[in-house]
């Protein structure tokens, strides 16, 4: 998909490569964050962050409340554009392009970099229409194709079996955990390359929570995932890489194993152990 004025239509070449082929190679960087600073007015919420986010890996962002995790993750699909006072400096390179540029087509960008929010936010429509909402906007009208995509994405989000008999009921009648998986399905239907999850399970009960975790591990096969979480054990279970944020700085970014067993920074250690009690 092309999202810049000077780049012609380009097919999703990565998608055509078989997953096995992809996994064999050493993980490449899908998002290269360089000196990223984000301001709200004069307040610097993220301070020249550098981070190479890897393809087909789960990257966890951890850190105390207010340290800039949401700000960081929302800048990747330009959701911060909605906040008039916010401003970004630096670069996020995706497919060779700085997606923070002014002339980026954010609409196309967001369909490649999907986002799921903390609070499940299905539309007050049927389950089916929640998923087709964006597809229809993109001109897909063929009922058969829509049916197929709906089933596929619900299966990927591990929700199909629970809702297949009531696709045309309101999404509001689902439980919180089901709603959140529907939101994930809705995003997957867009066939994004990258999934951004901002505390996707923090509003859910433990069972739904572990379902979402399983789901993330499955989705890793096909997507690059960035997840914000306050749950340390969750971060250690699902992620390959972990970044520890503190007051807008990335204190440490490394393999999850290393961060949780042998962090290089004392502050990381303190935070993690403090959380583990």
């Amino acid at each position: 998909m092309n999202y810049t004025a000077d780049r012609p239509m380009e097919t999703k070449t990565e998608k055509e490569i078989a997953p096995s082929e992809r996994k064999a190679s050493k993980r490449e960087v899908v998002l290269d964050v360089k000196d990223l600073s984000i301001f709200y007015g004069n307040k610097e919420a993220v301070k020249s962050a550098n981070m190479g986010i890897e393809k087909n890996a789960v990257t966890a962002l951890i850190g105390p409340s207010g340290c800039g995790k949401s700000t960081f993750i929302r800048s990747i699909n330009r959701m911060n554009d909605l906040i008039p006072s916010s401003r970004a400096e630096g670069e996020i390179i995706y497919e060779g392009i700085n997606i923070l540029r002014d002339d980026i087509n954010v609409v196309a960008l967001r369909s490649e970099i999907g986002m799921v929010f903390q609070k499940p936010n299905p539309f007050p429509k049927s389950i089916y229409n929640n998923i087709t909402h964006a597809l229809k906007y993109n001109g897909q009208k063929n009922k058969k194709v829509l049916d197929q995509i709906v089933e596929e994405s619900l299966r990927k989000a591990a929700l199909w079996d629970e809702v297949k008999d009531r696709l045309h009921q309101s999404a509001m009648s689902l439980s919180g955990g089901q709603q959140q998986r529907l939101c994930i399905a809705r995003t997957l239907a867009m066939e994004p390359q990258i999934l951004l999850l901002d505390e996707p399970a923090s509003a859910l009960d433990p069972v739904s929570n572990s379902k979402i975790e399983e789901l993330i591990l499955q989705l890793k096969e096909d997507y690059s995932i960035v997840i914000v979480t306050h749950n340390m054990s969750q971060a250690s279970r699902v992620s390959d890489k972990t970044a520890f944020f503190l007051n807008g700085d990335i204190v440490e970014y490394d393999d999850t194993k290393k961060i949780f067993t042998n962090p290089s920074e004392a502050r990381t250690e303190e935070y993690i152990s403090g959380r583990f009690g």
Partner: protein
Amino acid sequence: MNSRITDRIATGVFYTIAAIMVALLLYLFYFILSNGLPQVTWDFLTSPSSSYQAGGGIRDQLFNSLYILVITMIITVPLGVCGGIYMAEYAKPGKITNFIRTCIEMLASLPSIVVGLFGLLIFVNITGWGYTIIGGALALTIFNIPVMVRVTEDAIRSVPKEQKEASLALGITRWHTIKTVLLPYAFPGILTGAILASGRVFGEAAALLYTAGLSTPTLDYGNWNPFAENSPLNIFRPAETLAVHIWSVNTQGLIPDVREVANGASAVLVIAVLLFNILARWLGSVIHKKLTAGK
């Protein structure tokens, strides 16, 4: 004085005020309906008004009121909704937006007699139309648009931020998000606002005195050609509405049964406005339930 006592006194004061308001309203209804309802017969509703003899009805006035209402809403709703969308979604906070908002508020608070005189100047004299339905509708539009803009803006702003983010994060444009997510969600609020505004339009007299006029040509309800002189649908004919009729029979009526006609017309007017309010509440809650079904 401790805070418990203050709290009690405050609660008591509020209850008293509320009770006074309810009592006033009930008394008003009782007064108007008990005087007026006995006059409201089928004959009263379906016969034309008379100029000199007793026994005239309000058929044309009732039709005119409804027709002006419809024309006004056809003009007001699209403009007001667009304005509201602009104010809620596109206007950047700043001096210009504040200026626009002040203008809208001023417009809303203009006395209706002033709007009527303004209408007389613009829609009657300058255009050379004379007293017309369209002139009346445009005058009513002037103070209805601010209400519609306000109602729409509030309704759109009250859509949860999460809904908007959900749509935008799926790679959907702002305009499409407005159309398919924000407007449907805001619809009950907008509809309620529109119906309440209708109630106001229906009861308006001052703004119509000098724009839609004090008379109605003889109408032929079998003639639906909107360009014919005697067609009720002709928007370039004068049209006395119910509220204007009440005022005119009271101030310059020559009929012997002024009281009866005025009381009956008042009762009809009050019932209509009441119906608008009830309808607004009912529709709003039905649609809201439908939208959030199952919750």
